[in-house]
C-alpha cells in the first residue's frame, strides 16, 4: 500500500464526480445545481430525486457490494479470477430470487426483504456447494478448478432459471430483462431493500481485513499467525453471500464488477486488505454508476442492460488476468 490517504481521496473524488455525472446526464439534462438549489425547475427536481438519484445510488450500492465481495473472495481463495459471477454464486442468488417470484413466496415477517433473503440463501448454498465440489476434485483448490466448478454450477443453475422462466409464460420478458442485470426504474424501495445488507455484509468483510491479509499466505500460514481460520472463513463466505444475494435481488446478475474493480484497485494501490476492501467498495460504486450511465446513454433512447456493459469490459479483463497469471506475472 502506497500512500493510503491519497488513495481514499482520489477514490472519493472520482465517486462524487460519477454521482454528479450520473444525476445530470440523460435524455433530459438536469443541472447539478438542482441538488441544492431550492428554486430549481420543478420537473428537474422531480427527475433528479425520483428517477436519477435512486438509480445512481442503487447502481452505487450494487457495484460496491459486488466489488467488496469480489475482493474478499479473491483474497480468501488466493485466486484473482474469483468473483460472485465467475464462482456461480450470482446464478445461485438469481435462482433464489426467481424462485421467490415464481412461487410467489412471501414470508410475512420478512416482508420487503423476502426477495433479498431468498436470494442470499441461494447465494450461500451455491457458494458452499461450489467450494465443496471444487475441494472434492482438487484439495489444493487450483485457480482453474474453482473457475471450472463455477462454470459447471453456473450453467446448471442457468438451466433451472430457464425452466422456471419457460413455465411462467406471461412475465417472461420482465424476468429476462431483470436477469440481464439492470438498475433502471427501481426507485427508493429497492435502495431500502439492499442498503441494510450492503452495510452488514461489508462490515462482516471489513472485520476480517487483517485475517484476509494473513490468508493470502495460505490457510496453514494464517493459522500459524493465530487466525481462527475456520470461523473467519465462514464469516467471510457468509458476508460475501449476503452482499451477492442482496445485489442480485435488486438488479439481477451483473457480471465481472467483482473481478475488474479489485484487480484495478490492487494494481493502483496494492493488495493490503486493510485498504483494498474499502477502496474496492468505493471504486465498485463508481464503476457501476459510470457503466449504468453508459448503458442508458450510449444508444439513447434505447437502454442497454448494465450487465451488457460490465461484461463488455469485464470479459477482456478476465482474459488479461488469466493470461498474466499463467505467464507467471502477478495480478
Amino acid at each position: 500500500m502506497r500512500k493510503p490517504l491519497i488513495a481514499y481521496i482520489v477514490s472519493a473524488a472520482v465517486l462524487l464526480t460519477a454521482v454528479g455525472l450520473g444525476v445530470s446526464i440523460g435524455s433530459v439534462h438536469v443541472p447539478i445545481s438542482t441538488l441544492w438549489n431550492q428554486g430549481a425547475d420543478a420537473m428537474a427536481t422531480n427527475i433528479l430525486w425520483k428517477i436519477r438519484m435512486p438509480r445512481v445510488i442503487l447502481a452505487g450500492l450494487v457495484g460496491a457490494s459486488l466489488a467488496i465481495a469480489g475482493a474478499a473472495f479473491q483474497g480468501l481463495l488466493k485466486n484473482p479470477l474469483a468473483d460472485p459471477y465467475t464462482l456461480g454464486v450470482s446464478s445461485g442468488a438469481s435462482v433464489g430470487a426467481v424462485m421467490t417470484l415464481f412461487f410467489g413466496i412471501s414470508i410475512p415477517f420478512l416482508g420487503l426483504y423476502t426477495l433479498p433473503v431468498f436470494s442470499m440463501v441461494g447465494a450461500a448454498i451455491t457458494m458452499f456447494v461450489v467450494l465443496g465440489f471444487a475441494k472434492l476434485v482438487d484439495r489444493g483448490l487450483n485457480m482453474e478448478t474453482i473457475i471450472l466448478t463455477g462454470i459447471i454450477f453456473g450453467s446448471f443453475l442457468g438451466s433451472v432459471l430457464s425452466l422456471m422462466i419457460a413455465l411462467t409464460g406471461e412475465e417472461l420478458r420482465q424476468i429476462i430483462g431483470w436477469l440481464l442485470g439492470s438498475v433502471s426504474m427501481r426507485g427508493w424501495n429497492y435502495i431500502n431493500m439492499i442498503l441494510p445488507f450492503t452495510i452488514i455484509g461489508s462490515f462482516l468483510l471489513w472485520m476480517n481485513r487483517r485475517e484476509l491479509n494473513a490468508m493470502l499466505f495460505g490457510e496453514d500460514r494464517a493459522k500459524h499467525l493465530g487466525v481462527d481460520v475456520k470461523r473467519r472463513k465462514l464469516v467471510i463466505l457468509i458476508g460475501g453471500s449476503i452482499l451477492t444475494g442482496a445485489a442480485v435481488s435488486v438488479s439481477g446478475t451483473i457480471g465481472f464488477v467483482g473481478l475488474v474493480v479489485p484487480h484495478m484497485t490492487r494494481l493502483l494501490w496494492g493488495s493490503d486488505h486493510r485498504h483494498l476492501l474499502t477502496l474496492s467498495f468505493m471504486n465498485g460504486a463508481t464503476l457501476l454508476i459510470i457503466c449504468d450511465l453508459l448503458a442508458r446513454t450510449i444508444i439513447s433512447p434505447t437502454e442497454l442492460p448494465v450487465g451488457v456493459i460490465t461484461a463488455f469490459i469485464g470479459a477482456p479483463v478476465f482474459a488479461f488476468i488469466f493470461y498474466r497469471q499463467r505467464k507467471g506475472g502477478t495480478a
Partner: protein
Amino acid sequence: MLQVTGLTGGYGKEPIVKNVSFNVQPGEILGILGPNGSGKSTLLKMISGILPKQEGSVEIGGKNADSYSPKEFARNVAVLPQMHAHAFSHTVRATVELGRYPYQTGLFSSWTAEDEAAVTHAMERTGVTRYENTLIESLSGGEQQRVFVAQALAQQAPLLLLDEPTNHLDIAYQQQLLDTVRSLAADEGKTVVSVFHDINLAALYCDRLLLMENGEIAKIGLPQDVVREPIIHSVYKAAVKTQAHPELPKPQMTLLPSLNGNAAKPFLVDETQFNVTADSVQFHAPQSLKTVSSAVHNPGTGWYTTFVNRHVDANYNCDDVKKEMEEYLEKRGHHLTDTVGMMTAVQTLHAEVATYADEDISIVIAVTAGVGNAVDVSKAITREAYVGTINTWIIVNGRLSDEAFIQAMITATEAKTRALQTEEVLDPLTGTQATGTSTDSLLVAATQTGQELPYAGPVTALGKLIGAGVYECTVRGIQTYKEAKGWKS
C-alpha cells in the same frame, strides 16, 4: 519448553506418526531428520496444530497446546513455512506486520508502540529493512525467506518451528538463515525445532537430532550419535561414509555412489612410469590417487594425479615459497589443483625409484636423500625450511583405509631412521645418531582400486614391503649422495 508425549496421528485413519515422545529445552535446536515419507513434516504439523492428533499430547511452555486460543498459540509458537509462491503480493513491511496479528485486539486497529518496535527489530535482525516498501514477489527466494523469518520473529514466540527452511535456497542464504536461527537460540534462548532434508546441515547446526523412520523415532541424540554410517545406512538405505567436519566437532557424511562410469578403472603403478630428470622427479598417474603428504604444494589429504619432486639450488631462497612453487608448476604445464609438489636440494638424477612386490601387492618407492649440511646453519631456518632433504614417496597399488595411510607413514619413518643408522649418519651438533633431517617430507598415495589393504603396520604384507623398500631406497640414496659429495665411507 516443548514436551511431546506419545504423539500419534496423521492425515487419514492410519497414523503416520506413531508414539513419538521427546522434549526440547530453551536455547536448544532440535533437528528432525528422516527419509521421504518417514513422517517428519507430519510430526511438525501436528505440533503446530495443523494436523489433528489421535493420541498423545503436546505441551508448550508447561501448558497443553490444545488449551491455547489461536492467538495465544501464535504468541507462543512461530512457524517458518517452506517457500511457495503467492497469488497476490504484500510489501515486505506489511508481511512482517502480520507477525503482530496475534497481538491485535478489538475491531479497529490497535497498533501499539510495542508492535512497531517488534516489527522494526525483526526487520533489522534479518536485514530486510532496506526492502521495507518493496513487494515480496520482486525479491529473490533467499530474501523472501528472510522476510518470513522476520514475520516469525515479530511474533516474539519462544518456540520456533521450521519446516525445511533452506529448501530451494542457495548455500549463502542457507548459511545466513541458519546462522540467524543459531544465534536466536544462543542469544535469545529461543527453542527451535526444525525439519531438515540435508543431514549435513542438520548435523552442523543442531544440538540434537531426531531421526524418524516409518513414523517412529529411529534414534534421538547428539549429532555424532545419530549421524553414523550404520544408522544412516539402515534408515535411509543409502551407502554413506561419515567423516569429521574440517573445522568443527560435528559429523558430516558423504554419499558413496554405486559403481558407474566414473568409478576408477584398475591400473598398476610401476617405476617405469616415473620420469627422472635433472629438474625433477615426476610421476603422472592415469587417474587420481588418494594422497596424504607433507608437501609444499597441496599438502594434507586429497586426490591428485601429478606428483613432482623438484630440484632447487641449495641456496634457494624465496619470500613466498608456495607462490613460487605454483609459478614453477604452472610454467611446466601442471594443473595446480591436480598436482602435489615437493622440493629438494638433492640432485634429482640421484633419485632412487623402485618397485617392490610380493605375489599380491605391489608398491613403488621413490626417495631423494641428502644428509649433508653444506650450508651455513644459522641460515638453515629461513632457507631449508621448505627444502626437503629426504623426500620419500610411497605409491601403493591397492585400496587403503585411513588407518593404513597413517600406519604406512609410521612404517616408512621407522625404515628411514633405520637407514640413517645403517649409514651411521650423526647429528653434527650433538654427535649422536641422527633420526632424520630437519625438513624431511613424506607422501603416501594409493590407487584405491584392487585389493583392500586395511592395515599397513610391519606385521602386514604391505608394511613389510614399505619397511624393506624405504630402507633400501634410503640407504642407496644416502650412499649415492655421499659419493657425489666425495665423502668416502
